[in-house]
């Protein structure tokens, strides 16, 4: 598309964002992210944190589904593994978050790889059912938690929220402090995953998605790389789950049921399969839509007094409608819409 830019070395030719306008856009986004928390109230900070955490989880799911072509409806279960691992470490072992979060992420990666084992033999719908089994097994373990010694929910000690001995409560309110943590983790995730897919391992994932027989014949070990994709995907699910646990301070299994798995699938379908930025758009869309609806409901509650009773149904209906509309009109998701807008302006004023 772009013309007039010539690359003088392979390194610059292979850069993630080769054009100055793309770099400028990144700088603007980063500045906006830096300024935002100083002006936002706790309501908006909470939304931002929710989006950032969901985006990390969605990027994780996209590694598996969008990039590697393996269907999973067990993502909610993997989020739960991350949340409960971090939670139990904080409660039982008095561990601080800077230890629990990385450990929980790695442990979830292992659990994900284990439940990815059926992918070696199963494809498509059959694999989907196998991952559903993973989801149900994990939730069953949590609800029959005598094994783990947990009740309906788990409250984390405030003291666990400290970074290298410094209590987070000293740094500001919970939403403000966690903003830096969740957005920081999201940025690291974005960089890591973008790099992954311009190098050897990520390319092998995509090769498996596009043509698994040819992938084998060029030397990709399907077994190894499918498990690796499950592990990487679950790592980020674990990270999102562990962040949720420490941010909310209380976790219960109800947040991680199959509904959550479906919600994350909807995020990456609406945002864009096989796209890091799409995962973020999808997470933002799915978080902002219900928030927007409840604000609308509040605004009209004067005229329609019963609206709050119907709100959950309206929100669910809106989810369903959004998914259907995207599948019909833009199956490639929000990234594709955004790309169309950019193409329009790139050629402007000759946009025909």
């Amino acid at each position, binding site marked *: 598309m772009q013309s007039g830019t010539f690359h003088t070395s392979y*390194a610059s030719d292979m850069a993630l964002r080769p054009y100055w306008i793309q770099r400028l856009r990144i700088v603007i986004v980063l500045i906006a992210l830096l300024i935002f928390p100083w002006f936002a109230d706790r309501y908006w900070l909470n939304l931002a944190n929710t989006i950032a955490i969901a985006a990390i989880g969605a990027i994780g799911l996209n590694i598996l589904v969008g990039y590697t072509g393996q269907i999973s409806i067990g993502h909610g279960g993997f989020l739960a593994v991350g949340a409960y691992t971090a939670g139990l470490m904080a409660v039982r072992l008095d561990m601080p978050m800077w230890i629990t979060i990385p450990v929980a992420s790695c442990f979830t990666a292992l659990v994900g790889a284990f439940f990815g084992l059926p992918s070696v033999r199963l494809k498509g719908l059959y694999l989907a059912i196998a991952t559903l089994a993973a989801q149900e097994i994990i939730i069953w373990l949590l609800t029959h938690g005598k094994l783990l010694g947990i009740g309906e929910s788990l409250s984390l000690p405030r003291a666990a929220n400290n970074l290298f001995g410094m209590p987070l409560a000293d740094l500001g309110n919970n939403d403000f402090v966690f903003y830096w943590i969740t957005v920081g983790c999201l940025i690291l995730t974005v960089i890591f995953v973008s790099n992954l897919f311009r190098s*050897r391992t990520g*390319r092998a994932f995509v090769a498996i998605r*596009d*043509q698994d027989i040819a992938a*084998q014949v060029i030397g990709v*070990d399907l077994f190894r790389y499918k498990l690796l994709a499950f592990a990487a995907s679950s790592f980020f699910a674990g990270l999102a789950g562990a962040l949720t646990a420490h941010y909310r301070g209380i976790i219960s299994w109800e947040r991680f049921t199959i509904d959550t798995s479906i919600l994350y699938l909807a995020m990456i379908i609406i945002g864009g399969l096989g796209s890091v930025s799409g995962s973020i758009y999808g997470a933002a869309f799915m978080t902002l839509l219900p928030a927007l609806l409840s604000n609308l409901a509040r605004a009209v509650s004067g005229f329609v007094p019963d609206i709050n009773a119907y709100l959950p149904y309206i929100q669910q209906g809106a989810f369903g409608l959004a998914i259907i509309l995207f599948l019909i009109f833009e199956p490639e998701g929000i990234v594709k819409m955004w790309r169309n807008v950019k193409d329009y302006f790139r050629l402007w004023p000759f946009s025909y």
Partner: protein
Amino acid sequence: MTKSNGASPPRPQLEIDGVSLDFGGVRALSNVHFNVYPGTIQAIIGPNGAGKTSLLNCISGLYRPQHGAIRFEGRNIVGMAPHHIARLGIARSFQNIELFRHMTVLDNLMLGRHIHMRSGILSGGIYWGRAQREEIAHREVVERVIDLLEIQSIRKKVVGALPYGLQKRVELGRALAMSPRLLLLDEPMAGMNSEEKEDMARFILDVNEEWGATIVLIEHDMGVVMDISDRVAVLEFGQLIADGTPDEVRSDPKVIDAYLGREHAIRQER
């Protein structure tokens, strides 16, 4: 490279030794024997359904023959996983193009370098440093393949959108990027016009001569086969009915009867 003129024949690079393959009653290959010598171009011909593709699938590990051995550089590869066989230095193209459709030409070719690269998931995600150095080093190899195949202008194009002839060329490129010692090509010129066929034949000869790769080539176009191959094996209904130089095969009564004769007859009918 001197071919088929020596006193004592060199050790075969690939030995097809009594290979039989059944598909629940259908005998795709029965007791096939022949050798492929280093640095040669070996053609496999035969009517549709003769078992040519099945034989390549056995060599690359996609099918497992019930009987016989396939030895590559002295080592039996029957039962090895396809990715393992690829690492030994065997590359191939497919009769029906099997490219990574949603990726660019460059990414397809870089995937050809997969077995020669090392960086794992962590160094890939961190990228700067090790993985980047590796990407650049292997990009240089890939650029040589691009130059050889004259596909500079489509480097960054998504493969699925390219015309058929170019896709065939990219698929050859992906196999070449593996720097194979043995290259298996399943009808690389099928469906091409004569100009494209000429280009493809030139690329195959270049690869054979300049890179020293041994080539096993399935092709229906007799003119091309007789022109460029050193030896020809003929399959019919899963049986090897001839194996020799193009001249020997051309004058073999069994071949004339089973294959060439039929084609001549068809041609005369028109």
